[in-house]
């Protein structure tokens, strides 16, 4: 650690810095196509409702009401750590279908609230 940084921490009585989290606009959050690309990856989609492709292709993300299935293996089950002993893991049941727009709206809300 640089001496000036350490001196500042000492003066502040802190052990480390915590960066301020800056608020971003809704539009900023939706401006990363890779997020949608990840969400729409076939390996993540347990099944894709027919209207999802149509809606996105025709009207773009903002207008569609398409849904996707959350990746089953991404779900943490409450008994996960208690079942380490088992090697015959059964994949989690898929979560209820989730909406891309809903996800992005929640992210946006978090940004506007300064939580993100």
């Amino acid at each position, binding site marked *: *650690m*640089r001496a000036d940084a*350490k001196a500042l*921490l000492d003066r502040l009585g802190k*052990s*480390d*810095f*915590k*960066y*301020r*989290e*800056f608020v*971003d606009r809704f539009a*900023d*959050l939706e401006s*990363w196509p*890779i*997020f949608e*690309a*990840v*969400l729409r*990856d*076939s*390996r*993540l989609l347990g099944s894709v409702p027919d209207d999802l492709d149509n809606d996105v292709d025709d009207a773009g993300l903002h207008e569609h009401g398409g849904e996707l299935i*959350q*990746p089953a*293996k*991404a*779900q*943490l*089950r409450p008994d*996960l*750590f*208690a*079942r*380490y*002993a*088992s*090697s*015959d*893991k059964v*994949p*989690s049941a898929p979560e209820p279908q989730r909406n891309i727009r809903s*996800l992005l709206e*929640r*992210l946006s809300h*978090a*940004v506007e609230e300064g939580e*993100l």
Partner: protein
Amino acid sequence: MALIVVQGLRGGVGTTFLAANIAIAFAQAGREATALDFAAHGTLPLHFGLPLDHPIAQIDGNPLEDSAPLGVTLRAAAQFAAKGDLAAALASGEIRFSGEQVVVADLATADEATRAMLLPYAALDIRVLSATAESLSVLPHVLDEASDRTFYLINMADDTRRFCRHMAGFLRELLGDRLLGSIRRDEAVIEAGAMLQPLAKYAPSSASLKDVQTLVHDLVPRLSAAFATNDETAVAVKPAEDRSRKTTGRQGVSRAA
């Protein structure tokens, strides 16, 4: 027992730094910790402040002098795995993860073979990513192959960077509790390596170090709870009475003769 596999989604995401400092944090928390270096030209010793030419004992060899820096037993395992001995040793129980030990395996990003061998024995599989499109682009593939022991960790996080903040939020939504958290980017990590010092010595107030320690603090009770119900483990380990067989010194991973 706990084998923790640490592997990056992409190269350069700081996997070795995390593996080393996770092991160090467990040792500081009073656990017997071992770090296994599965990289052919691994840099794990660097994060313990060891000289570049410092010999590291092989996993199937005898312990060398100063082989437990910062309370962590270091073992090189790449050659052992490359020879094809690892799978047999694991299956036969020659290598087993026993007792209260915590074994942290540092895997090279592309080493799918070793990963496949170790994962059935792992209590925790930590996949490391950085806040980059490259890491994110690999995620669908990784999620597709993830087990329910797989968790994710963002390294080198910088909240002053817009994409980093957005990606962290995105991953929180996507992964839920599968996202263990973020380790803040800290220049002290690079400086400590350049000074040939462990981060804990070079910059004990490092933000990265504090985040790793917090991570390990959060993992301990989870792993302890697992141990309590892990006596009838289904993995191919020797019965408890066989653990008195010859081992190679103070190795965290026992290998019977």
